[in-house]
């Protein structure tokens, strides 16, 4: 098992979003959680990432208890709804941001992943010149270079048009499978869920997975 959530309770502004829920994810599995806007999907991902403190419960990643760890020590990658690219860096600079120290940079690996993601030709472009789909590809490439143990996808395709969304969804699935990286993808789009996910659960279903 890659991730194991035990008896997790989350609340936002005194409103309970998740109460004593359990969830497990197999190695390399891509789980999609489907739910309407505002139901708490993003809060769940932010809790796994370490940005939100759970009211109670535990989260284990490959046997490590994540609760005491800050986000930077969890080795998890995350794609947000809006692609987050640093405006003071160009495309290559943003991708190289995956390496905290210059001496750790592996340019062969960087070039290979940029070619795989179809963004090699735009490596010297500024980020304002990228389309939404290209920007998310850059973000994904950067996240993959950190070799995450888990990838969290917070509706990263929601702002793209239908064709690009479907194409990118298929590419994300293929990339994750080829690298055997488990992922939790939250969305409200059924088509996208069907393309990406190995397993799909509705938010209401997840909500009812309460501990005895």
């Amino acid at each position: 098992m890659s991730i194991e959530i035990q008896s997790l309770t989350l609340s936002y502004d005194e409103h309970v979003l998740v109460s004593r829920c359990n969830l497990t994810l197999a190695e390399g599995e891509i789980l999609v959680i489907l739910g309407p806007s505002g139901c708490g999907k993003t809060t769940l991902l932010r809790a796994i990432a370490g940005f939100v403190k759970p009211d109670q419960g535990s989260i284990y990643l490959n046997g490590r208890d994540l609760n005491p760890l800050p986000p930077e020590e969890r080795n998890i990658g995350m794609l947000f709804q809006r692609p987050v690219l640093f405006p003071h860096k160009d495309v290559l600079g943003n991708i190289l941001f995956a390496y905290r120290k210059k001496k750790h940079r592996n340019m062969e690996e960087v070039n290979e992943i940029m070619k795989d993601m179809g963004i090699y030709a735009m490596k010297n472009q500024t980020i304002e010149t990228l389309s939404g789909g290209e920007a998310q590809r850059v973000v994904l490439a950067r996240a993959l270079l950190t070799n995450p143990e888990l990838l969290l996808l917070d509706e990263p395709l929601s702002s793209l048009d239908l064709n690009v969304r479907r194409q990118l969804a298929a590419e994300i699935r293929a990339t994750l499978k080829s690298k055997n990286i488990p992922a939790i993808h939250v969305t409200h789009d059924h088509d996208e869920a069907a393309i990406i996910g190995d397993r799909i659960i509705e938010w209401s279903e997840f909500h009812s997975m309460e501990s005895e």
Partner: protein
Amino acid sequence: MTLRSIRSVPIFVYLGFILIPIYLAIQRLIDVTGKDPFTAIFSLPDHPLGSEALYFSFIQAFLSATLTIAIGLPIAWWLGRHQWKHLNIIRAALTLPFVTPTIVAAMGFLALFKTGGPIESLGIDLRFETGFIGWLSNATGIENSGHIIALLLAHAWFNLALVIRFVEPKIATIPPRFEESIRLLPIGKTRFNRARYFWWPMLRTSIGSAFLFAFIFSFTSFALVRWLAPNMWTLEALMAVEGGAAGIHNYRTEASLLVLGGATLQGIILLFALGLAGYWQQKQSISNDVVSEYFARKTAGKPSLFARIGVSSALLFALAPLGSMLLSSVRIRDRTNESFRWSSEAWDIALTGDLTYVSAAEALSNSIAYALACMIVSLLLGYAVASSIHTFETRGKKKTAMIIDLLSMLPLALSGVMVGLGVLLGVLKVWPELFQWYGLPIIPHAMLTTPFVIRIILPALRSLDSSYDETAAMLGYSQYQRFIRVRIPLMKSSLVVAATLSIAFSLGEFGASWILLRSGSWDTLPILVDQLMARPKYFQLVEPVAMATASLLMMVTFVLFVITERFREHQGGGF
């Protein structure tokens, strides 16, 4: 130690840094006078000059603020409504006076009004009040009317930038469809009605804020009062002069009483004005939607001839005192035959220091050393406090954040003279050995500049998207690494603006430095200019040397101003 208490440390350090000198000074004055600060206010009329200073402070500040709005509003209107070529340069030239050191402004206006100067040659003698001004004095019965006019004009010149910065962006971004809609209604048929029912409600908070800030800066002005209206007293000027005798047991208790009562009253007035200006600014920022400046300007089109003449006159008004000062440093008046000659002698004397204890070059190096140290202290402290406030806000502690935010603005209610007296009567009476410390001026300078740094950095922190920080965290960056590699690069503009403004304010600071460094080898450039102007003028080069020294200060400030303008991101309705 909990995380919350760690976040509070910079706030306590900041408040301690500001409040301890003031608290110690007040405590000492209470001991000496035997009166509490509020009772001392009612003793102000007991001082021979107390009532006059109080009355003149109010009147001149009110008239100066009114004149500032009267001159600045048409300029802001023309600039905000039309498409101008080189708009950024025009804006920069009109806002230059606000960052000009007050002693430089005083020298500029003295150069403009002096005998043989451009204004006197037009038959308007504001300095010696002959001719028309003399007639005006006699007709109105107002003594020193020439000096008062000079002071009001100088205050309007200095504060003009406030109207430009507060009102012009507002005019430029109001959607044209609003005015178009009101023109189609019966109520908006005439210009007067549109001004009354549309523009005034839209602009009144911005105009009000500009008026209040102009009032505050005129009320606490010292160098301009000292040199342009030398026979008049404001509270600030009187406190500065009487401050040297205050705080000593059984010696001139009326001086201590004046400083205690004057500072308390001035603090209350400034706090009230700042509170009201802050409230109006907040209302202004949430009032309505805006459009891009380009769109609004395009709708109104190119400026009319009248607008061009108006803006050109404003540019002349903004640059004339500085130009006159520069000219006066090389145009030497020969007293024997009342003629003028061109020479760089005054610059040579200023740089070698033949007339003073320290040369202009040494004073410049002192000024730069203090300004750099002040920048480091105020940037570190200001960033830490702004970051603490922002952390409280993001963690949902909105009330705590608001209280700390308000407390952080308290020092804005302290004038240069009040801060100088705080350090003199508070810190130095407790630790007199600090008088021997070269870095002494850094304390008041940082006290005065840190609140401005907070006001620049806090909005930048608020506008910084938290997802950048979160993304870097997900890539494994520690808090320190995120600060260095994400926060600093993204906030570069604000940090550069805060740093250069801090240096510029410190370089030009006069009130506190005048109290603490009146004679010594650590003189700053503004103090050197004041010392030179205070010398008897038997030697014909005294005044040109003072003008040359002030010009040197202006040039350094100008370089800093250019840097600030290059990095300033366009923002509506603020400093």
